[in-house]
C-alpha cells in the first residue's frame, strides 16, 4: 500500500468511523447507565436520516437547522421509547429488553415505508459542502471532512458534558453504581429518560449526517446496527472512549480492507470482534 493510499484511504476510513462513533457513543452510554442493549438504535439512525430529509428538502429548511431538528426529533422518539416502554422492563431478563427493542426495529421499518415510501431518498448536497479539496494530489470530499469535524466536535462536547458538568457526574455515578446514585438522591427514572433520549439524539444525528451521502431506505436500520454492536463490544460495553477506539478500528478496517483483503471485509469485522472478546473478554478498554 502506497503512502498516498495510506493517507487517502485513512481519511476515508476516519469519516466512516465517525458515523459509527456517533452511533456507538449513544448505544454505549445507554448501556452504561440503563444497562439496556437497544436493537432499535440503528432504526433511530434511519429515522434521523428521514427526518433530516423531510426538514431539509420537503420543508426547505436550512441544512444545519435540519440536522439539529432531526437529532432533536430522534431524541423525542427515544424519550417516548424510554418513558412509555423500556421503563417497565428494567428489572427483567436481558432477553426481554432485547426483544422489546427488536419490536421497535420492526415497527420503525414499516413506519418508514408508510411515511416515506419504499424508494431510496437522498437530498441534494448542500452547496457549501459540495466540493473537493486536494489531498495527496487527489480530490477529497469536503463533506467527509465535515463529518470528521462533527465527529470530533461531538467527542469534545461529550467529554465536557460528562467530565465537566454536575449532570455528567451523576451520569457517571449511576453508571458505576445505581444504588449508590439513588442513595445520593439522584432521580434515577428521570435520569434514565434523559440519558436514553440523549443516546437516541446521537443516533439520529449520525443518520441525519448521513442523508446527503447515504440514501435512506426502510431497511437501513438493521444493516447498521450490527456494525454498531461490534464497535461497542470491541471497545467494551458502556465504555465511551472504548466506543471511539472501536469505531476507529472498524472504520479504518473497512477502508484499508478494500485494498488489503478485498474479498473478506464482512468476515474481518466479525473476526476482529471475536478475537477481541476471546482475549479481552470485556473489550479493549474494559466494559461493564
Amino acid at each position, binding site marked *: 500500500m502506497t503512502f498516498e493510499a495510506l493517507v487517502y484511504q485513512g481519511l476515508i476510513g476516519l469519516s466512516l468511523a465517525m458515523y459509527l462513533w456517533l452511533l456507538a457513543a449513544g448505544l454505549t452510554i445507554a448501556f452504561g447507565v440503563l444497562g439496556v442493549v437497544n436493537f432499535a438504535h440503528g432504526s433511530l439512525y434511519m429515522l434521523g436520516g428521514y427526518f433530516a430529509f423531510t426538514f431539509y428538502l420537503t420543508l426547505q429548511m436550512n441544512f444545519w437547522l435540519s440536522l439539529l431538528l432531526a437529532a432533536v426529533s430522534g431524541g423525542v422518539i427515544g424519550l417516548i421509547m424510554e418513558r412509555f416502554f423500556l421503563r417497565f422492563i428494567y428489572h427483567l431478563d436481558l432477553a426481554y429488553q432485547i426483544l422489546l427493542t427488536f419490536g421497535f426495529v420492526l415497527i420503525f421499518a414499516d413506519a418508514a415505508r408508510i411515511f416515506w415510501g*419504499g424508494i431510496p431518498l437522498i437530498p441534494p448536497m448542500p452547496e457549501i459542502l459540495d466540493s473537493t479539496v486536494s489531498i495527496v494530489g487527489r480530490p477529497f470530499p469536503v463533506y467527509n471532512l465535515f463529518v470528521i469535524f462533527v465527529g470530533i466536535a461531538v467527542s469534545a462536547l461529550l467529554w465536557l458534558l460528562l467530565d465537566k458538568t454536575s449532570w455528567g457526574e451523576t451520569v457517571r455515578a449511576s453508571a458505576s453504581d445505581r444504588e449508590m446514585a439513588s442513595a445520593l438522591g439522584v432521580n434515577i427514572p428521570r435520569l434514565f429518560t434523559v440519558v436514553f433520549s440523549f443516546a437516541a439524539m446521537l443516533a439520529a444525528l449520525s443518520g441525519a449526517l448521513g442523508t446527503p451521502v447515504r440514501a435512506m431506505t426502510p431497511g437501513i436500520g438493521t444493516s447498521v446496527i450490527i456494525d454498531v454492536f461490534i464497535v461497542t463490544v470491541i471497545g467494551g460495553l458502556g465504555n465511551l472512549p472504548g466506543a471511539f477506539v472501536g469505531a476507529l478500528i472498524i472504520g479504518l478496517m473497512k477502508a484499508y480492507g478494500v485494498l488489503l483483503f478485498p474479498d473478506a471485509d464482512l468476515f474481518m469485522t466479525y473476526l476482529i470482534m471475536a478475537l477481541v472478546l476471546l482475549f479481552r473478554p470485556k473489550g479493549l478498554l474494559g466494559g461493564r
Partner: protein
Amino acid sequence: MASKSAFNRRQFLKATAGGVALAAPFIQPAQAQDPIKIGAQGVSSGSHADYGRQIQMGARFAAEDINAKGGIMGRKVEVLYRDDELINDVALKNARFFKAQGVNFMVGTDSSGVCLALGPVLPELDLIQVFTHAATEKLTEDLVFKKGIKHIFRGSVPVYQDAILPALVFKDNKDIKRIANLGADYEYGRTSWAMFHTTLKKFRPDVEIVGETWAPFFTADFTPHISALAAKKPDLIFATPWAGEAVLMLRQATTLGVFNDIRVWWQCMGGSVDVLEGISRDVATGKFKDKLWATARYIWNWPNTPENKAFVGSFSERWGRLPNYSAECTYSAIFALKAAAEKVDSVKTADVIKALEGLELSTPAGKRVYRPEDHQAVYNVPAGRVTYNKEVAPIAYLTDLKVFPASDYFRNPPFN
C-alpha cells in the same frame, strides 16, 4: 419431457387426492365462471420494497386491463400478491399458499436465489411461473435448458443485457482502455462482471482490468471502494450494486469527484425507475458530466410505439408513477399467459406450457418471443446515457439510446 412432468403430476394428484377431498376451503376445482387466479410475489418490505410494489402494480394493472376487455376466455382475472422478503423459504411458502388458493399461474420474484429455489419446485406444484425480475442466467440455461424444468419461464431479460450489452456499446470506443469493477459481492455482481470483461476483451484485447472491488449486500458507504478504484485511474467503471445502494453509491461517487477523471460509469440496472428517481437532482445539476450510462430490462421511453405510449400513459395515470421494468415485465407476462391460454383454449399447465413455447407477443417493451429451448423471452432493450429534462419527464431518463438486436447479446442454446 412434457410426458414425464405429466406423469409426475398424476402421481402428485393421486397422492394428495385424500387431502383434496377434505381441503375444500383450500382448493376449489376451477369452473368456467371462476376467475382465473394469478399469484404474484416480490419483495415489499425492507430496503428493496419498491421492486415488489412495482410487480404488484404491474400485475394488478394487467388484471384491470384484461378484465375491462372481457377477461381471459370470458373469465375474470384475479391477482393475489404476497411479500417474499427476498427469502427462499418465504417465497416457497407463498407458492404453496397460492397453490392452496387454486391459482392458475404465478409471476414475479426479484431475487436470483429465490427464483433458483422456486424453479425446481414448480413441477411438484404443477404451476407455471413467469419470472419477471430475477436475472440469473442459471434459471433458464441450467434449470430449463439443461435440467428440463418446463414450468419455468422468464419474461424479463437475464444478466446478458446488464453485462454483454455494455461491451457492445463501448467496444468501438478507443478511449476506453482501462476498466474497473465496483461489484455487488454476490452471484449477480460476479456473473455480470465476468460476462462483461470477457465479452469486451473478445473485441478489444488491448483493454486492461485495472481494479476490482466487491461490496457486500446492504453496504451503506461505498466511498472506500470508489476511492480505491479511482486511484487506479480507470476509463470505465462497471458497477452492479442496484436499488437504494446504486443511488447512494452514485452520490458518493460524485462527492469523490470521480466523474472528472473517468470517461464512462456503467450502472447496471441504473435505468430502473427507483434509481433514476433517486439520482434525478444530481443528473439535473450535471453532477455526472454526462458520463453516466445505464440500462434496464425495460425503460418507459423506448420503444417509441403507440402501444408503449398508451401503456406508460395509463399506467402513470393509474399509479402516479412511471412503470419500472419489473412492472412492465409482470404486466406483459400476464398478457403472455392470456395469449397462451386463449391459443389452446385451456388453463391446464401442460397445455399452456406448450402454448407459451415459441409464443410471439407484442408488448409495451416491443415484440417478445418465448424461446422454446430455454423459455426465455427474447426482446430488445436499449442502453443509454442518463439525462434530465423536465419537459420530457419528471425524473431522469435514458437518452442517446443504443439499441442492439437481442440476438446480438442474448446467449443462445446450447450455452457453451
